C-alpha cells in the first residue's frame, strides 16, 4: 500500500546509494579473492569480471521499476506547465476568462443557495411545513403568509397532528446596557417555536410555552453569534437580566451555533416570546389579538402524519378553531371570510423570507447572465485552444512520428486543459469571494439589513468544480482530438502558410459575439430601466433631508419638543414629523366617504406636521399648507394630492369641500384646505396613489408609533446629524437615535434594479472584452497561417488596402453573423425579463441598435491590429519560407 502511494519516493530510496552498495560489494569480493590467494591486482580484476558492467547494472536497476501513474501525471503536469509558461498571454487570457466565469457563477449561486436553496440548520428540516391561509372571502383569493397569534396557538394545541407549531416575526429591539444601547435585530416567537424547530440549546435553555404567557417573567434567548459578540461567551450571563427596550429581560439560554432564526437573511440575535410584547412594546399589545395577522408559521407534523392528513384534520376542526380567530368587533362579512378560510401548506425546509419574492427573479436573471459569461469564456478558451492546437500541429506531428502514443498525447493536452480549469477554479473562488462581498454590500443598502452565511458550502464548491470540469471536457478534448486525428504523415505534410479551413474555430468566435450581444442587450435594457426609474418625477427632493427614527409610544410633547430643538439648530432649514415618508415601505390606508358614498378603494393616509411639504419640497399647487394653528384648532382639515383631486372632484374645485374618514372612530368630517403635487408611494414603479394628508397633532393613530422626523439641512449633513443625535439622545435615553438620509431610503427602493444593472453591465463589459479577444485571436492566427496566400496576392499586385480589406472582411463576416444570431436570440429571450423593465419594451429598438453598433465597432477595432499586421507581410520572404 505504502509502496503504491509513495511509489516515487520509495523508488528513490531504493536506488539511492546504489553506487556505494556496488563499491562495497566489489570490495568484499576483492577480499574474498585475496583470501583465496590472488594478488591484489588479480583479485580486483576478477571481482570486476564477476560483477559485469556497472553502468548496465545501474540502468537495469532503474528499469526494474515500473513507472507509476502518479509519475506519468507528474511528467504531464510538468510538461503542461512548461508549455503554458512559453505562451504567457494565452495562459493569462484563458485563466482570466475562466476564473471570471467560474467566480461570477459561484458568487451568484452562493447567493441563490443562501437565499433560496439552503435548508434551515435544524434537525430534519425536510419535515417542516409552512402554513398559510386562503381567506374564504371570495374577493380576495390571495394567500396570506401570516396568521394571527390566537390561530397559531390553536394550531399548536393540535398535539395529535403536530409535534410543534411555531409562529415568528422579525422585530428590532433596543438592547444593551444603559450607556451602550444598540438597535438589535431580533424576533418574537410563539412558545412552541423552538420545540417545533427541534433545537438543542448551546447553553441554558430555549423558550417554552410557559414563557409565552402574559404573566410570565420577561425572558429572552440569544444567538450563539450574539453571545460571542456581546458577551465573549461568558456563561455567567445565563439567567442574568439584560436591558431590552428599557425593560429588564433575563437571558435564559443561547440557541445552537448556525441558527439565527427562521427568517432567512435576518439574524434574530434576541428572541422574545410573543406575549412579552405587552411589556416591551405596550402600544403594540393588540398584536396578541385576532385582528393582527403578522406571524409566519412553521410546523412539524407528527412522525407518520402526512401533509394530506394534516390538511384533512385541520379542515375538520377549523369551524371550532376559527372562534379563536374572530374578535367581537369583526363585521359579519369578515367573520364569514374567516370561517370559510382554508389552510395551505408549502415545504418549510428553507425557512421563510420576503427577500425571496424580492430577489428571486433578479437572481435567476443574473444566474442566466453569468451562465452566458461562462459560455463566452468557454468559447473563448476553446477558440484559443483550437488555434493553439492548429499552430502546434507540427510539434505534435513530430512527436507522433517519434513514437509517442496517441492516447498519451491526448492525455497530455487534456492535462494542460485540466491545469487551466483547475487553476481557474482556484482563482475563481477568489473572484467569487470578492463578488459575494460586493453583492452583500449592495443588498445591505436595501430595505432590510440582511446577513447571509456566504462561506462556500459543499454544494457551491461541488458546483464550481463540476463547472470547471465540464469546461475542461468542453474545450480540452476537442482540440486534443483534432490535433491527433490526422495521422503523423498527413500532419507533417502540412505546409505552413496555407491554413487548414476548419469550421469549428470561426463558429466558436461567432458564438461568442452572439452571446455577447445577448448579454449586452440585457444590460442595456436594465441600464435604461434604472435610468427611467431614477428619472421618474417623485414629487419630492430627497437630497439634503435627514430622517430620524423616533418609533415607539411617546407623548405628544416629545414630538413638539423634538421639533423645537431641531428647528433651533443652525443649518436646519425646516423640520417636520410624520407617520410615514415616501418609499419607507410602511403605510396606513383606509376608506373615505365622499358625498355620502363610501369609496371602494382604500386611500393612502399620512399624518404630517407643519413644514412637512416644505422639508420634502413637495409643491403645494393650490390652497394652503398645514399651519401651527391647525394643531390647536377643532376644525378638522386635510390636504389631498392631485390624483385624489382629479379622481374624486373632476369637475369642481376641491378646496373647501368635505369628506369623511375614520381617522378616528367614529368617522370625522375633513375639510380640504390644499392640494399638493403627487408623491410616489412605496412602489417606485407604480403611479402615485390618491393620498390624504391630515395634521399630525390632530389625530391619534397606530401609525404614529412608527413616526420619523424629517429635517432639511443646508450644507454638510454629517456634523448636523451629530448635533441632532446629541440633543435628542437626552430626550430618548432608552433607544439609540438612528439617523438616515432620505436619499438612502430612496436608493434602497431600487436595490434589486441596481444589483441587476451593475452586475449585468460589469458582465457585459467582460463579455465584450472576451469577444474582442476571441475575434482578435482568430484573425491573428488566420493572418499567421495565410502569410503565403497574402504574399502571393501582394506579389500579384494587391495593394495595402486590398490586404487590409481581406482581413477586415473575414472579421466582419464573423462579427455580423454573430450579431445577427445574437439579435434573434436576444429578441426571443428578452420577453422573459419584460416584467423587470420599466418605461421601455423588451424589444426596445434603441437598445438593440445601440448594442449592435457598439459590438460592430469593437469587432472592427479588434480586426484592425491583425489587418495591419497582414500589410507587413513581405511577399518574397513569405513565398520563399517553405
Amino acid at each position, binding site marked *: 500500500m505504502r509502496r503504491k502511494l509513495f511509489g516515487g519516493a520509495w523508488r528513490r530510496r*531504493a536506488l539511492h546509494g546504489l553506487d556505494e552498495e556496488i563499491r*562495497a*560489494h566489489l570490495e568484499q569480493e576483492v577480499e574474498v579473492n585475496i583470501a583465496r590467494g590472488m594478488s591484489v591486482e588479480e583479485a580486483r580484476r576478477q571481482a570486476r569480471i564477476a560483477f*559485469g558492467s556497472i553502468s548496465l547494472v545501474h540502468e*537495469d536497476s532503474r528499469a526494474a521499476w515500473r513507472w507509476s501513474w502518479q509519475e506519468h501525471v507528474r511528467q504531464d503536469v510538468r510538461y503542461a506547465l512548461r508549455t503554458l509558461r512559453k505562451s504567457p498571454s494565452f495562459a493569462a487570457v484563458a485563466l482570466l476568462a475562466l476564473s471570471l466565469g467560474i467566480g461570477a457563477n459561484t458568487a451568484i449561486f452562493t447567493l441563490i443557495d443562501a437565499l433560496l436553496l439552503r435548508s434551515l440548520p435544524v434537525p430534519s428540516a425536510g419535515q417542516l411545513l409552512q402554513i398559510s391561509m386562503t381567506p374564504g372571502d371570495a374577493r380576495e383569493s390571495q394567500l396570506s403568509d401570516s396568521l394571527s397569534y390566537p390561530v397559531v396557538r390553536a394550531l399548536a394545541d393540535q398535539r395529535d397532528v403536530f409535534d410543534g407549531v411555531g409562529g415568528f416575526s422579525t422585530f428590532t429591539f433596543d438592547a444593551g446596557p444603559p450607556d451602550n444601547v444598540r438597535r438589535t435585530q431580533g424576533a418574537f416567537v410563539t412558545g412552541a417555536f423552538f420545540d417545533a424547530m427541534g433545537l438543542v440549546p448551546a447553553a441554558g435553555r430555549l423558550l417554552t410555552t410557559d414563557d409565552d404567557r402574559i404573566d410570565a417573567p420577561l425572558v429572552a434567548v440569544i444567538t450563539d453569534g450574539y453571545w460571542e459578540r456581546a458577551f465573549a461567551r461568558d456563561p455567567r450571563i445565563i439567567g442574568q437580566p439584560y436591558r431590552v427596550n428599557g425593560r429588564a429581560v433575563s437571558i435564559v439560554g443561547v440557541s445552537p451555533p448556525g441558527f439565527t432564526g427562521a427568517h432567512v437573511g435576518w439574524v434574530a440575535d434576541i428572541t422574545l416570546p410573543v406575549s412579552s410584547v405587552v411589556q416591551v412594546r405596550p402600544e403594540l399589545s393588540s398584536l396578541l389579538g385576532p385582528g393582527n395577522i403578522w406571524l409566519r408559521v412553521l410546523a412539524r407534523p407528527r412522525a407518520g402524519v402526512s401533509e394530506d392528513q394534516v390538511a384533512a384534520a385541520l379542515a375538520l376542526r377549523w369551524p371550532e378553531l376559527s372562534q379563536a380567530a374572530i374578535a367581537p368587533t369583526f363585521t359579519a362579512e369578515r367573520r364569514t371570510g374567516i370561517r370559510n378560510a382554508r389552510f395551505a401548506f408549502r415545504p418549510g425546509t428553507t425557512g421563510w423570507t420576503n427577500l425571496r419574492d424580492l430577489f428571486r427573479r433578479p437572481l435567476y436573471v443574473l444566474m442566466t447572465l453569468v451562465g452566458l459569461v461562462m459560455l463566452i469564456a468557454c468559447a473563448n478558451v476553446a477558440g484559443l485552444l483550437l488555434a493553439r492546437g492548429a499552430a502546434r500541429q507540427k510539434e505534435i506531428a513530430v512527436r507522433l512520428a517519434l513514437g509517442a502514443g496517441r492516447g498519451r498525447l491526448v492525455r497530455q493536452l487534456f492535462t494542460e486543459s485540466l491545469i487551466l480549469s483547475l487553476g481557474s477554479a482556484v482563482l475563481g473562488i477568489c473572484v467569487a469571494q470578492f463578488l459575494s462581498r460586493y453583492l452583500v454590500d449592495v443588498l445591505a443598502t436595501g430595505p432590510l439589513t440582511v446577513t447571509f452565511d456566504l462561506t462556500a458550502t459543499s454544494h457551491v464548491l461541488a458546483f464550481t468544480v463540476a463547472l470547471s470540469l465540464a469546461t475542461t471536457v468542453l474545450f480540452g478534448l476537442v482540440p486534443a482530438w483534432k490535433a491527433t486525428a490526422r495521422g503523423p504523415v498527413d500532419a507533417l505534410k502540412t505546409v505552413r502558410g496555407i491554413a487548414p479551413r476548419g469550421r469549428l474555430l470561426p463558429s466558436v468566435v461567432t458564438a461568442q459575439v452572439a452571446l455577447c450581444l445577448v448579454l449586452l442587450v440585457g444590460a442595456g435594457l436594465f441600464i435604461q430601466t434604472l435610468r427611467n426609474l431614477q428619472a421618474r418625477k417623485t414629487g419630492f427632493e430627497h437630497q439634503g433631508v435627514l430622517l430620524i427614527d423616533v418609533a415607539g409610544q411617546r407623548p405628544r410633547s416629545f414630538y413638539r419638543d423634538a421639533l423645537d430643538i431641531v428647528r433651533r439648530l443652525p443649518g436646519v432649514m425646516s423640520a417636520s414629523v410624520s407617520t410615514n415618508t415616501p418609499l419607507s415601505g410602511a403605510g396606513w390606508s383606509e376608506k373615505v366617504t365622499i358625498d355620502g358614498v363610501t369609496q371602494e378603494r382604500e386611500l393612502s393616509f399620512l399624518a404630517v406636521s407643519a413644514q412637512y411639504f416644505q422639508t420634502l419640497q413637495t409643491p403645494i399647487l393650490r390652497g394652503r399648507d398645514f399651519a401651527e394653528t391647525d394643531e390647536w384648532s377643532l376644525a378638522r382639515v386635510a390636504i389631498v394630492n392631485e390624483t385624489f383631486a382629479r379622481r374624486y372632484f373632476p369637475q369642481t374645485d376641491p378646496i373647501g369641500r368635505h369628506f369623511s374618514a375614520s381617522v378616528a372612530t367614529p368617522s370625522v368630517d375633513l375639510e380640504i384646505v390644499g392640494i399638493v403635487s403627487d408623491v410616489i408611494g412605496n412602489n417606485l414603479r407604480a403611479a402615485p396613489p390618491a393620498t390624504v394628508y391630515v395634521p399630525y397633532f390632530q389625530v391619534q393613530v397606530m401609525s404614529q408609533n412608527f413616526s420619523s422626523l424629517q429635517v432639511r439641512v443646508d450644507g454638510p449633513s454629517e456634523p448636523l446629524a451629530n448635533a441632532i443625535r446629541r440633543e435628542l439622545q437626552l430626550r430618548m435615553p432608552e433607544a439609540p437615535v438612528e439617523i438616515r438620509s432620505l436619499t438612502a431610503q430612496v436608493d434602497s427602493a431600487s436595490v434589486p434594479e441596481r444589483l441587476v444593472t451593475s452586475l449585468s453591465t460589469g458582465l457585459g463589459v467582460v463579455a465584450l472584452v472576451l469577444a474582442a479577444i476571441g475575434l482578435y485571436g482568430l484573425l491573428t492566427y488566420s493572418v499567421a497561417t495565410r502569410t503565403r496566400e497574402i504574399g502571393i496576392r501582394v506579389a500579384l499586385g494587391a495593394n495595402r488596402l486590398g490586404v487590409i480589406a481581406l482581413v477586415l472582411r473575414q472579421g466582419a463576416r464573423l462579427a455580423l453573423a454573430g450579431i445577427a444570431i445574437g439579435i434573434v436570440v436576444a429578441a426571443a429571450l428578452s420577453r422573459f425579463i419584460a416584467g423587470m423593465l420599466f418605461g421601455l419594451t423588451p424589444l426596445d429598438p434603441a437598445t438593440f441598435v445601440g448594442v449592435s453598433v457598439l459590438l460592430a465597432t469593437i469587432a472592427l477595432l479588434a480586426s484592425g491590429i491583425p489587418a495591419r499586421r497582414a500589410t507587413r507581410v513581405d511577399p518574397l520572404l513569405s513565398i520563399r519560407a517553405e
Partner: protein
Amino acid sequence: MSTKSDQGQIALLQGTLDLLILRTLRLGPAHGHAIVKAIESGSDDVLLVEQGSLYPALHRLIERGWITFDEGTSENNRRAKFYRLTAKGRKQLDIETSRWEKLSGAIARILRPAPQE
C-alpha cells in the same frame, strides 16, 4: 546470460535468479554480496551468478513488494542495504518453489523416461 561451461559451472537460467534470492533471504536478511555468495556456496559453487545482475533483480523484487530493505552498515563499514523477505514474498516463494518443482520434475521425466510397465 548464455550457458557456459567453465570449471563445471552453470550460468543461471532466466528467472531462476529471483527464486534463488527469495530462497536465500528466507534464512534471514542479507546484503547483496552475501546473497551472491550464499547462492554460489549453497549450490556447491555449481551455479554462477553474474554478480552485477543481482541488483536489477533485487529492485524488481522490491518493486513487486516481495522483498524490502533496511539501511545498515556492511562488514567493511560501508553503507549497505540489508534485504529481507516480506510476507507477500514468503507466499510468492512457496508458489515459485512448487512451480519450479513441477517444471523440473516434468523436465526430468522427459529426459529420463520412467521404465515401461
